[in-house]
């Protein structure tokens, strides 16, 4: 049997989204140990469980499309397949974390980081009106370049981030927020994730002039991969889980 990994798509919402990525990976390790998932360990002096996460989610952002690959040390035959193990893990996760899909993947295939070519973000709680946001989005999409000054490891660079922006849409207030006149419109941004990634806070600053992204609510809704039939999500979103696990 070639090396197999269990790929889980999960949601992170509510209070638990304030946990940093390092602590989140510890939560995963402990949860898998608790339910007895046969996780493979790395070799060496201090063996670590072989989990790999995709593109890091900013602390405080929510997501309904996070992924983890769990390298397995033995088959899952006794677990009732991937759907069965997904349910068991789901039950053991803390509030705010939920498994939405599970599948087996070839562990020698591309990593999550390599597979993901684009990410979709939803952002709300802007101070601007939907008209202002729409205008800013339109001018970005028609521009040839969009320069952004950013800092990394103490050095400042000016990058053209326009190529990373695939699409930006602006929605008027939705659902239950309709009653609230102060509720803000929603920005949906499709961002390419190849090369140096463009963070949602950076996008909000460059496109909408938001200086303090801490005021925004940010939610990752999809991570995309390119295939022969165009792009698709790494694993299907939750409303398709049932049909998937039935087959």
């Amino acid at each position: 049997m070639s090396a197999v990994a269990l790929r889980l798509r999960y949601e992170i919402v509510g209070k638990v989204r304030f946990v940093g990525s390092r602590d989140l990976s510890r939560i995963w390790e402990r949860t898998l140990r608790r339910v007895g998932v046969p996780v493979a360990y790395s070799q060496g002096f201090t063996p670590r469980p072989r989990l790999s996460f995709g593109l890091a989610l900013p602390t405080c952002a929510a997501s309904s499309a996070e992924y983890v690959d769990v390298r397995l040390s033995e088959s899952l035959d006794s677990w009732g397949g991937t759907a069965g193990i997904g349910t068991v893990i789901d039950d053991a996760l803390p509030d705010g974390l939920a498994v939405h899909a599970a599948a087996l993947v070839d562990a020698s295939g591309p990593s999550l980081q390599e597979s993901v070519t684009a990410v979709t973000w939803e952002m709300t709680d802007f101070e601007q009106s939907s008209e202002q946001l729409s205008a800013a989005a339109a001018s970005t999409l028609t521009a040839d370049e969009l320069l952004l000054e950013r800092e990394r490891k103490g050095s400042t660079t000016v990058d053209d981030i326009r190529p990373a922006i695939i699409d930006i849409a602006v929605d008027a207030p939705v659902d239950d927020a309709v009653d609230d006149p102060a509720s803000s419109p929603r920005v949906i941004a499709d961002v390419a994730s190849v090369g140096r990634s463009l963070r949602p806070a950076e996008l909000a600053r460059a496109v909408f002039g938001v200086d303090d992204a801490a005021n925004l609510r940010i939610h990752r809704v999809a991570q995309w991969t390119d295939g022969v039939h165009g792009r698709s999500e790494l694993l299907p979103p939750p409303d398709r889980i049932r049909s998937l696990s039935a087959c």
Partner: protein
Amino acid sequence: METVWPELERILPRVRKPGRYIGGEDGAVVAAHGPGVVSWLLAYPDVYEVGLPNQGLQILYEILNERADAGAERTYAPWTDLESEMRARGLPLFSVDSHRPAAHFDVLAFNLSSELVATNVVNMIDLAGLPIHAADRSADAPLVLVGGHAAFNPEPLADFIDAAVLGDGEEVVGDITAAIADWQARRRTGHVDRSALLHALAGVEGVYVPSLYDVGYAPASHDTDGRPVPGGIVSLAPRADGVPIVVDKRTVADLGDWPYPKQQLQPLIEVVHDRLNVEVFRGCTRGCRFCQAGMITRPVRERPPEQIRTMVAEGLRRTGHDEVSLTSLSTADLSDIGPVLDGILDDRMATVPDGADREAPADCGVSISLPSLRVDAFTVGLAEQVTSGRRNGLTFAPEAGTWRLRQVINKLITDDDLAAAVDAAFAAGWRRLKLYFLIGLPSETDDDIAAIADLAARCVEVGRRSHDRASVTVSVGGFVPKAHTPFQWFGQNTEAELQRKVDLLRRAAKAHRGVQVKWHDPAASTAEGILSRGDRRVGAVIERVWRAGGVFQEWSEHLDLQRWVDAVEAEGLSVEHLVYRHRRANEVFPWTHLSAGLIHDFLWDDWQAALAESGLDDCRWTHCYDCGVCTGYDIDHVVASATPPGPSDEDAPPGGTDLPAVPVEIGASRRHPEQHPVAVGGR
């Protein structure tokens, strides 16, 4: 406003480690609040990562939430970044469970595990929106309580607290709940004020209400240089009938009746001591004269071995931890330590599927740590049994450099004992050892300091027989005399003297290859000294330091000793009087009316024995020295064996089995300088 979460949620993206403030731990419960339920907010006056693992707080959290008449939530000190945001927006101190404002609770109960948290206690009372002085609080304001080891001298906090609780908390929290519920019922039907509640609490065994006592002082004078010398205490007396002259601590007779925590909290973020903890016994009668914990927690009460085994197996299964610490003040002294360890390891192996790689961490990896005071080959053998693979660090605590001084402090390890333990440890594969020492001990000379370096050098030499690069780290802390110990009469070394000794040791150690020295800041020891044996007048000092911004005083980047010195002088007190002077034989201590069960004559005689360089055996295995605890409280040691645990005959090392039982520490669970919260981060 029952929850501040909607406001807090907007602030959290602006602070470091927001995961500190979200609760949601596995094991956390949703407490019911409402009429007929006394609501407790259990507070730890340091940052979440330090406070969350505290077992005392977790035990009370469970016990209170199991009661129909009580509910409990938890809170921790907000780090300075969140505090600024909270004050800017008028957001009060909140619980991490339901984010309920602190002032909505009936009780705000602080766990005091050290003295330096005093300013954080005041800060949290203020953040709760309450007047910091107990006398200014309205009838229906939450009751402010303190408990824990440092509550055995609560006098520096007397102005700020309504009551202090002495000793084990398991039973007394129920009595306090009942007293509050009764007062609340009476208050609904008639006119009873807060003082009625305070008097009722003063009638609960183990509860001390400072405002019901008068303290008299001798007039102040001046020394020959014209500096003020505050008067000592001349009287301590209850103000009213029904208020006890002496308040005795509470003691749980049988730990087996209290298998808590049953659901140890599993935090979402990394905390210090991130592992399963199972308390295997409480109390210690080794009799180390500097050790307040050993003195105030007597007698020894062992948990039944089967219960230990069940709590470990259950806890590991439930939490998914791969490490368990068997906690006590000296775990190698547990009567059945050998069988208990065998049982735990058997239980783990039983979970390994047939044919699985038994060395694979996924299958059976669990490491066990054993904080222990003994220094001997037997203890090293235990450590060897419970560690596989990594043998990173092993710590021994000889505490003093010479046999003479170890007799003074009653830590009866000979140099040869230590060498034998060190030899066994290096031979078993450890390459780095840490040795803990105290400096500033009674009768200490420069020779005793130099001997620390020599002892470490000898350990390196022993280690190099096994490994070329064996090394030893010497970690020294300044000795701070504590209440209710034989050393309570001793004048603490000055900051300058401690610093001189540190420098002396560093110079002495330079001559030796493989010996490194780490030390605790003498300034922190001095500040701790002001609080440890201070009286009520130190309350004003705490308030000044707090108003000057001195919070998180256990964190080196926040401690500024000059603030304390300035505040002491501004209040007409002196550091000399509070910290450095030797106490008189007939001294009235600020805690003279508070009792850990130890009678005055025992402590005084033990202090005299110390000065005569005379050691004392462990009364668990020898005869009674009449310290007063067992006889006074009509309780007894609960130990399974009349002899100390040690190697059985067939396991005996060549050369005999007569290794004296010796003090040491395995693992690293004791709080010592470099394990101070500083290491946790927060930057």
